[in-house]
């Protein structure tokens, strides 16, 4: 049996239905656990208690990018292999990605206020996330505007491809345009100043929680999309008969 068998709607519904309870439970446990554990960590000597927002900010930012990558992969699978569930999964993921981007931006602003003394700074990272949000909005708007689902799936797939290139391009253009005051990546291996372990482990847990949260949400939304397509298909057949 090949992996593509799972792209069959019936099989997808069965498999995803079995996975879903575990994903939901894992998402709740890990997210709540990670954030609460993070909240109980001691204050940072420089940033004080404000640092605790990192347990929301970093996982959301990570998922904002990863969800776009997942949409790109799903779109490629749709455009090349024509698996319908794949196109619906990309559609289902987009609003989640947009909300993750919003969370990253909002928590960044709330964190930036005490740290940088401003709610918004045209810092390369923040700006890149704002641009990513625009790409999410365009993608969602295109799905919403095209009535014929077959055309919508193809057009959004092409847009996702082109958008990915330009999102990446914008990232470097923004870096060129403004070197910011954002701190470097919190978990990067090369950086000399690494996050200490007491922050790192709750952060890992929170990241896992956000990942599972995404998996649970995208499964629920894809299942809803499949049911909606099933309904539309039955109506279309009725009208044709």
């Amino acid at each position, binding site marked *: 049996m090949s992996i593509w068998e799972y792209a069959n*709607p019936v099989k997808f519904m069965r498999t995803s239905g079995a996975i879903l309870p575990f994903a939901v439970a894992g998402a709740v446990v890990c997210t709540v656990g990670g954030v609460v554990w993070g909240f109980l960590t001691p204050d940072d000597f420089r940033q004080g208690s404000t640092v605790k927002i990192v347990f929301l900010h970093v996982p959301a930012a990570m998922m904002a990018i990863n969800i776009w990558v997942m949409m790109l992969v799903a779109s490629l699978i749709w455009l090349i292999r024509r698996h*319908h569930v794949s196109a619906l999964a990309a559609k289902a993921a987009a609003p989640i990605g947009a909300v993750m981007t919003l969370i990253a931006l909002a928590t960044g602003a709330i964190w930036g206020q005490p740290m940088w003394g401003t709610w918004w700074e045209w810092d390369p990272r923040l700006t890149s996330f704002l641009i990513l949000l625009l790409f999410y909005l365009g993608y969602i708007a295109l799905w919403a505007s095209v009535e*014929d*689902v*077959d055309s919508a*799936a193809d057009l959004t797939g092409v847009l996702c491809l082109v958008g990915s290139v330009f999102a990446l391009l914008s990232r470097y253009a923004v870096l060129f345009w403004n070197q910011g005051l954002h701190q470097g990546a919190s978990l990067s291996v090369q950086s000399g100043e690494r996050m200490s372990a007491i922050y790192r482990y709750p952060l890992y847990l929170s990241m896992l929680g956000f990942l599972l949260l995404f998996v649970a949400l995208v499964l629920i939304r894809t299942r809803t999309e*499949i049911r909606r*397509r*099933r309904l*539309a*298909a*039955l109506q*279309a*057949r009725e009208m*044709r*008969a």
Partner: protein
Amino acid sequence: MSLLAVHDLAVSRGGLRAVEGVSFTLNAGEALILRGPNGVGKTTLLRTIAGLQPATAGLIEMAEDAVAYAAHADGLKGALTVAENLRFWAQIFGGEVGAALAAMDLEALADRPAASLSAGQKRRTGLARLLVTGRPLWVLDEPTVSLDAASVARFGAVLRGHLAGGGAALMATHIDLGLEGARELDLTPYRARPGRAEKPAGFNEAFG
């Protein structure tokens, strides 16, 4: 020499197969008229053969760049004159304007802007474009809409001339164009049966 050979063709509209299992060949000098009730898939089949949409299943065999397509919209630019409109298509396809103007009785209108033409005159210009393309296989979707009786007869003559000159025509029409020996193909028996297909035509079949 067959200009067009269609094997076991299935075409779809709105994510559902319209007709399936259609096979026919069209030789030089032949005309084939598609019949069937509204919505059976005549337009979809013609657009598929013209290359405007992919076939859901089956095979279409023909020479590259053989098709000239004419449908409800004439593709005329109101700001350009009749001659300018045709000259543009002549440059694209590499054909002759003068003969086409004469054949469709458009010489008197040649310098009029297309916007000022009546519906029937626009239609005649649109059909004159077929001659301009110089292509052998005409795919026509209701070519006689808004034409008066005299123009229908004139177009019938043009079409007979095209067939006699080694061309072929595939069309959907309800009007008798006076083509002797034109075959008819009723699409009703080929209406696609609902049900799961090996390769779904679209979302409506994949989830049907």
